[in-house]
Each structure stands twice: as structure tokens, then as C-alpha cells.
């Protein structure tokens, strides 16, 4: 796991520096392994992270962003500006840091909904109008993010 992290950092270095003489590549290798060596061990929630689920999650999220993007564009371009902003208290059974970060980020990325406050088990979300937050209220986001970290049922 740590070797993988060091390798990922090294690849990032290669992509960003784009100079491939011995000096630069050696510097990159040394820096990457130093960073991994100095940083604390990987967070426990990353151990149950499912890369396959993440691969399925990203396209799903992009489709969602596109759909609500067109919805919000229609709202903005409508001469009557038919918005009805509201604050929603969104109860969720997700509680670990990793899940909350992914859930909050996904909500904010989707046009029409923004995470205002985050606490374990509860989020305050600002929605531009009622149709924007239908999918959030139905718990679809929670389910997908939960699958990402393969939560067990007893973790409620």
C-alpha cells in the first residue's frame, strides 16, 4: 500500500515535470519516498475503499452533473427566474470522514445543490429549487456513496 502511494506520487512528478534526465527522475523518486515515509500511515477508511465502485461512481456522477446542469441553466435563462431556494436538513446514515467528504463534495459538485454544514449523520443542504434535490431526498446519493466504502449495516 505504501509502495503504491510512493509510486503514484512518482508518476505525478513525472507527469508534471516532463524532464527525463537522471537527475530529475532521481530527485522525484527520492522526494516521493520521503513524502510517503514522513506522512502518517494510511487512514483506516481507505482500507475498505472499493476502487471498482469508484470506477462506476464517477460516470454516474458526471451524468448527474450534466442533467442538473441543464436544469439549472434553464432556470437561469428563464425570464421569470422561477427559483425557490430552500435549506434542507438531510439525514444520512453515513458517518465516517471519508464518506462525508465524498457525499458533501458530490452534492456541491452537482449544480442546484450545495452543502452548507456537515456533521456526522446530518447535512444541511441549500437547494435552488425543489426538482434539484429530489434525488438527494430519495437517498440515492447516500446509497451510491455507501457502496463506495462498502459500509456494513451495523455501522449505523
Amino acid at each position, binding site marked *: 500500500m505504501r509502495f503504491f502511494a510512493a509510486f503514484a506520487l512518482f508518476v*505525478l512528478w513525472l*507527469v*508534471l515535470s*516532463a524532464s527525463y534526465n537522471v537527475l530529475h527522475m532521481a530527485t522525484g523518486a527520492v522526494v516521493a519516498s520521503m513524502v510517503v515515509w514522513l506522512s502518517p500511515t494510511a487512514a483506516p477508511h481507505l482500507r475498505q475503499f472499493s476502487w471498482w465502485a469508484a470506477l462506476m461512481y464517477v460516470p454516474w456522477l458526471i451524468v448527474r*452533473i*450534466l442533467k442538473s*446542469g441543464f436544469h*439549472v*441553466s434553464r432556470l*437561469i*435563462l428563464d425570464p421569470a*427566474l422561477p*427559483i*425557490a*431556494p*430552500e*435549506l*434542507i*436538513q438531510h439525514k444520512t446514515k453515513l458517518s465516517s470522514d471519508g464518506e462525508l467528504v465524498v457525499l*458533501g*463534495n*458530490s452534492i*456541491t*459538485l*452537482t*449544480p*442546484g445543490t*450545495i*452543502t*452548507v*454544514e456537515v456533521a456526522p449523520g446530518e447535512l*444541511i443542504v*441549500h437547494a*435552488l429549487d425543489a426538482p434539484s434535490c429530489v434525488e438527494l431526498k430519495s437517498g440515492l446519493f447516500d446509497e451510491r456513496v455507501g457502496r463506495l466504502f462498502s459500509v456494513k449495516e451495523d455501522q449505523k
Partner: protein
Amino acid sequence: MTWLAIFLIVLGLFFLVVGSIGMLRLPDVFSRAHALSLTDSLGAVLVLAGLAVYEGFSMNFLRILVVLVLVYLLNPVISHATIRAAYRSGLRPTNKESK
């Protein structure tokens, strides 16, 4: 390939323009942040994706990919921080219907 790039960039520009119009038309800081998320997560990203497609697979393609991932990770954090600061300092949405 070029046509796909043109399509993506024009779509991105559309969202950038709509986001700017929204920034002017919407009433308060909360709803303006929605216009911001429109420019960020669709406008900028579609333009970058169009550039990546135009570039083809090369070093610059990988760099644009890194920027794309960073945009998707960092922009929601920034707009969340802004909105939470506004909320905590006592601002509330204009026609609020707390549920």
C-alpha cells in the same frame, strides 16, 4: 476528433456564459454559488476535456487530466467553505422555507 473537441469546448463555453449570467441575475450569495458550481463543474471542465481530446494522448493530455481531477476535488471544497462562512455569519437564503 477535432469535431468532438469543438463540441465539448462550445458546450463548456455555453455553461460558462450561463454561469456568468446567473451570477448577475440570482439574488443572494447562496443561489449565486449555484451559478458558480455551474461554471466550475461543467464549464471549465468541459473546456479542459475538449482541450485534452484535441491534444490526443501525450504528456499534455496527462497534465490536463491532473488539472481536471484537481478541479473536481478543490472547487466544491472552496464553494462549501464560502457558503458555510456566509451561513455561520448569520446570512440566510432570501425566501427561506426551512424544512
